[in-house]
């Protein structure tokens, strides 16, 4: 360490001054100094764009796309009441115009919510099963664990390609059997909204269950193993151990994980764009991307509504979990 001071003194005067200045800061000043890079990065890439998105949502673009005028909350009003902005590219809407299945599946808000609810429900059940297996001790566990995690690490574009190739009507082997069962459209499967939504949900379950499993595994591993020894002595069966010890103790973890995953699922975009297309399966993020070049104000309003829904969910998470969630 004595060479350290030697090297220090050979540095230029400004640097030494800066070091000395830094040494004399209080903890609070030093903390804020070190956080400057984070503030700059988040300010430029998150805070500024978020404020600007809100600002843009208050303007409407003129028909010739050259100018824009202030319209206040008109874009939001039209999204929810079905004014001229209701009709977005591809014949899709923001909220359904009626209660028919067709109208529901053409609505970005409903499709996003269906996607989030159904995929997260299945991911929770499958993830719990996978977590219970990963929690056991057995030979070859390392390989089983790697195999189960791999889908989580697969790039979204490749995940999309896998399911495109599996359910595409030309080469997909899975389409015909499932079409026979009446689950999928037999031709142009990926251009049929109901079928494509089904396939996208399956694709998401395949990729994200492992992530859910890891979250639940964290809860499983925090359970005091002594409880199981006591249960065994008391003569509890494996099922009773699960029902009376494991499940109640991991329920809070599952709750947080479900909310957390739902928030993530609300921003679905990539898998839709790669397996099918945003005009077949509209989601909130899809609508933003599809419209921001032509109807900037509408796109910004949808983006801000999405952010607001997620913001409320996160507030709920924090209110429920308190400081632990931070």
């Amino acid at each position, binding site marked *: *360490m004595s060479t*350290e001071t030697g090297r*220090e003194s050979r540095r230029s005067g400004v640097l030494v001054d800066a*070091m000395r200045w*830094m*040494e004399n800061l209080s*903890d609070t000043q030093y903390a804020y100094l*070190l*956080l400057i*890079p*984070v503030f700059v*990065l988040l300010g*430029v*890439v998150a805070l500024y*764009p*978020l404020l*600007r998105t809100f600002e*843009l949502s208050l303007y409407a673009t003129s028909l010739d796309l050259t100018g824009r005028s202030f319209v206040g909350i008109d874009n939001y009003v039209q999204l929810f009441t079905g004014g001229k902005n209701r009709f977005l590219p591809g014949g899709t809407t923001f909220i359904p115009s009626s209660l028919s299945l067709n109208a529901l599946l053409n609505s970005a808000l409903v499709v996003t919510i269906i996607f989030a609810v159904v995929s997260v429900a299945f991911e929770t059940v499958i993830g719990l*099963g996978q977590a219970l*297996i990963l929690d056991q001790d057995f030979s070859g566990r390392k390989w089983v*664990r*790697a*195999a*189960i*995690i791999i889908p989580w*690490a*697969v*790039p979204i*574009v490749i995940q999309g*390609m896998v399911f495109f*190739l599996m359910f*595409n009507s*030309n*080469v997909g*082997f899975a389409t015909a*059997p499932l079409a026979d069962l009446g689950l999928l459209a037999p031709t142009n499967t990926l251009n049929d909204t109901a079928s494509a939504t089904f396939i996208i949900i399956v694709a998401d379950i*395949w990729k994200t269950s492992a*992530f859910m499993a890891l*979250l639940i*595994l*964290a809860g499983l*591993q925090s359970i005091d193993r002594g409880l199981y020894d006591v249960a065994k002595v008391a003569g509890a069966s*494996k099922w009773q151990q699960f029902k009376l010890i494991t499940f109640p103790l991991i329920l809070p973890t599952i709750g*947080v994980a479900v909310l957390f995953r739902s928030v993530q699922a609300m*921003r679905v975009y*990539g898998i839709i*764009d790669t397996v099918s297309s945003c005009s077949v399966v509209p989601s909130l*993020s899809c609508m*933003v*991307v599809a419209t*921001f070049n032509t109807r*900037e104000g509408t*796109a*910004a309003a949808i*983006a801000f509504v999405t*952010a607001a829904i*997620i913001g409320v969910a*996160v507030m709920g998470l*924090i209110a429920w979990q308190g400081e632990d969630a*931070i």
Partner: protein
Amino acid sequence: MATTTDDDNSSEGPLARWTQSAIQNPEKVYRALFYVAMVFFLVTTLFPFYWLLVLAVTPSGRLLSGSFLPSVDLFGVSATFPLPVPKGFNPEAFITVFEQVPFHLYMLNSFALAVTTTVIVIVVASLAGYVFGRLRFPGRAFLMLGILAVSYFPPAAFVIPLFQAFAGNAPITLPFTEIPLFTPPRLLNTPGSMVLPFSALFMPLSIFILTTFYGQIPDGLEDAARVEGTTRLGALFRVIMPLSAPGVATAAVLTFIAVYNEYFFSSIMATSTEAARWSPIVGGILSYQTQYTTQYNLMAAASIIGVLPVVILVIVAQERIVSGLTSGALKE
């Protein structure tokens, strides 16, 4: 217990024997259920990769003719074999992939973007992790909450202003005023337009992982280093970070995988899908879909090649991934 029943029922079939012993010893049933579930999960997670392989080695001429589920003769009754099998064997697709588009360059772009982002995230998150893990100051909880909130927001909420700014056509104005600040350089189709959003979005997870690790280093070690004459920053980069090497590795692996995984900004900010213009793997794989519509075997082969780096990373670094996600994921 099991052996005695085996002797008693030696005249019965193996299934009946197993059932008998299972009734007397429920552990066996649980064990069997466990293996059934394990095999089920392994098959469902690995099957899509097998399907890619089937498509990739099937000669392109035979892709569209006939079924991948061959008919088999089952004791005189014809039935459909339940597992798809390749129609022929022609591994040439794995070479053609590189001849039709420079797929290796797309992968190299993805690597460069992921490595750059990881380095930025580790440096910035180290500073923040040190602050949140080791210093007490007013506003700490509030700031952590703010960083947490950013990682929850949908990328769609950021994309419109970022796209306009990176296009570099008009000056950035102060939000809610018409005051122009400066005109940014054109960043679309450069690493900047992707690395910036990636860094901001994936940084919070690293901050939380590093906060935990840095917070666990005993104060005494840092104090000793300071007494020896190192600076405050020196103590962080020469003492705290090396001692938390496992945490730093975890954060780095998770950031790398997240960037390699990313789709939203990768597809929007690289408006040109040319490899020479920094389009990552997303552009590479999609270019087989747009230019060579029917070459499904190439799409499959490219996907297998593109997935190999993360498969290797998961197998090598799985301990780090599991510990990182189980401790930090809820805080992403």
